[in-house]
């Protein structure tokens, strides 16, 4: 591809990009992945399950590596490994306080071992000259229309499941004890959520690579939850932010010779920092106003 020139005229730029079929597919896939990863990631951040989420997202790598080695479909490798790892993590949580040190040690062992397996599969498969980097850091070039269709179906399934489970899951995430007392099946919900997380990461990993899925899940959600405490609004904001940074990243990666993951994570992290700065400023202003108000009231009295 001759390096195209960014013209600052969005109409022209998008026309140029969308004249390449692979870019159209990349934008479609990016939109699906961003929305699904954002929505699931929002619950992940709310439930403080970032370590489990990160583990599930890197598991995509051994899945894809095994699929390459054994010669079956990549999608099967991604979905099979991520969902299986979600079930394993759910199984290991049984009868233990979530978030305990022992559970995180177990999660760490699972993650490192599966990554090592991925490396073994890669080493055994001599044919791939590029090495594991494409699987780890992703590639938005060469996404086929068939892949987009698979992504859309799986993404719809995840969103539907989230729509059904959303309310009880929110309840169980915010206050598990009260939810359990009210008869919400907290344990079953936590298993179901890990499986959903597995499906979502498997989906996103096909575009962003196994190592950068996590960025799409955690960054928009963390940003939105800093900006607003209202669940519906911050969920909506998460999806919008995820979508925006992914498309902006695609545009940047099309015009500059650097990887997509770098742009997406940088944009998302920039917004995250901005959100923190905004909250900090707002709080400082509020404190100042309170202090001024108190001083004024004191002076008047």
């Amino acid at each position, binding site marked *: 591809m001759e390096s195209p020139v960014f013209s600052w005229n969005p109409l022209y730029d998008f026309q140029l990009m969308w004249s390449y079929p692979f870019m159209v597919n990349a934008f479609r896939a990016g939109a699906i992945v961003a929305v699904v990863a954002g929505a699931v990631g929002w619950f992940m951040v709310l439930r403080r399950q*970032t370590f489990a989420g990160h583990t599930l997202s890197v598991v995509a790598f051994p899945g894809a590596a095994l699929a390459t080695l054994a010669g079956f479909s990549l999608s099967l490798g991604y979905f099979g490994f991520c969902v299986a790892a979600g079930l394993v993590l759910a199984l290991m949580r049984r009868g233990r306080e979530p978030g305990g040190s022992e559970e995180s040690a177990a999660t760490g062992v699972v993650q*490192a071992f599966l990554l*090592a397996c991925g490396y073994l599969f890669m080493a055994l498969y001599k044919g791939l000259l590029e090495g*594991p*980097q494409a699987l780890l850091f992703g590639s938005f070039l060469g996404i086929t229309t068939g892949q987009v269709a698979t992504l859309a179906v799986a993404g719809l399934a995840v969103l539907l499941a989230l729509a059904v489970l959303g309310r009880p899951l929110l309840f169980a995430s915010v206050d598990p004890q009260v939810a359990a007392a009210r008869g919400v099946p907290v344990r079953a919900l936590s298993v179901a959520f890990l499986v959903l997380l597995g499906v979502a990461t498997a989906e996103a990993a096909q575009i962003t690579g196994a190592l950068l899925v996590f960025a799409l899940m*955690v960054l928009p959600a*963390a940003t939105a939850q800093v900006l607003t405490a209202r669940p519906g609004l911050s969920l909506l904001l998460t999806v919008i932010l995820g979508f925006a940074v992914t498309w902006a990243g695609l545009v940047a990666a099309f015009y500059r010779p650097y*990887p997509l*993951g770098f742009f997406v994570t940088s944009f998302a992290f920039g917004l995250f920092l901005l959100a923190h700065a905004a909250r900090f400023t707002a709080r400082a202003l509020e404190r100042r106003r309170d202090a001024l108000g108190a001083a004024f009231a004191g002076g008047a009295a």
Partner: protein
Amino acid sequence: MSLLLASADSAGAASAWSQPFFHHALLAGTSIALAAGLVGYFLVLRAQIFTGDALSHVAFTGAMAALAGGYDLRLGLFVSCVLVGLLLAGVGRRGKADDVVIGSAFAWVLGLGSFFLTLYTTSASGSGNGGAGTSVLFGSIFGLDGGQTLVAVLIALAVSLAVLLIARPLLFATLDENVAAARGVPVKALGLGFLALVGVTAGEATQAVGSLLLLGLLAAPAGTAIRLTNRPFRGLALAGGLAVGEMWVGLAVAAWIPQCPPSFAIMTAATVAYAATWLRPRRDRRPSALATAES
């Protein structure tokens, strides 16, 4: 690394034992495993495994940045890991950062790493060296030369010594932070110092098993030790011993079977040991704070 695969292939299984690269790997691996086992024990006890996870990604970015800038890879490893370790200790209250903040930060750091990787592989110095990323991610312990081995051994022994020196107050601060602070233990300083040690260990372990797998070297022996005993100092010794033993088994297997990468063999040994503890019926365990008070 293609170099190590080639040498392992040509040397054959039986004679790998007498090759210098194997001796280097054994020396460096033993000391690195000891440091990782000791540091990992406290990391698990303090529920900061996710910080180790974050540092494993930071290590990759640091190494890639150093390579892209034309510096020694280890310089980037140590500087980035120690800096980020201190930063993570600094932003959180009481020397512990929130998991979501850690996750957000290292997600971006990893994106930065992919940028440096591209920069390095497309630059003149790194052209035709696409394997560098892989060897940083997954380690190349059989590729260490004499000088690198010496430095790795010295740093790892220094880390182990430092952990043993601060073990008592650190344990106190870990098990009961408020009481420790009230008794005049510098809790915050210990948290900072400990994360700096974790950073150095992460840099060391990256050379052995690679940045992606160092989490296993930190978590598995420590997790195994904690499941086996609830006496802290016995657990600490057990974690160090287990890590060294698993490193030896892994290296031996990798020398025996040339197709098997050493990082995979080491991780498998560690995982098998950890999984074995799940087969054993659990004793009724008291909280470890009680055990400390009695020991």
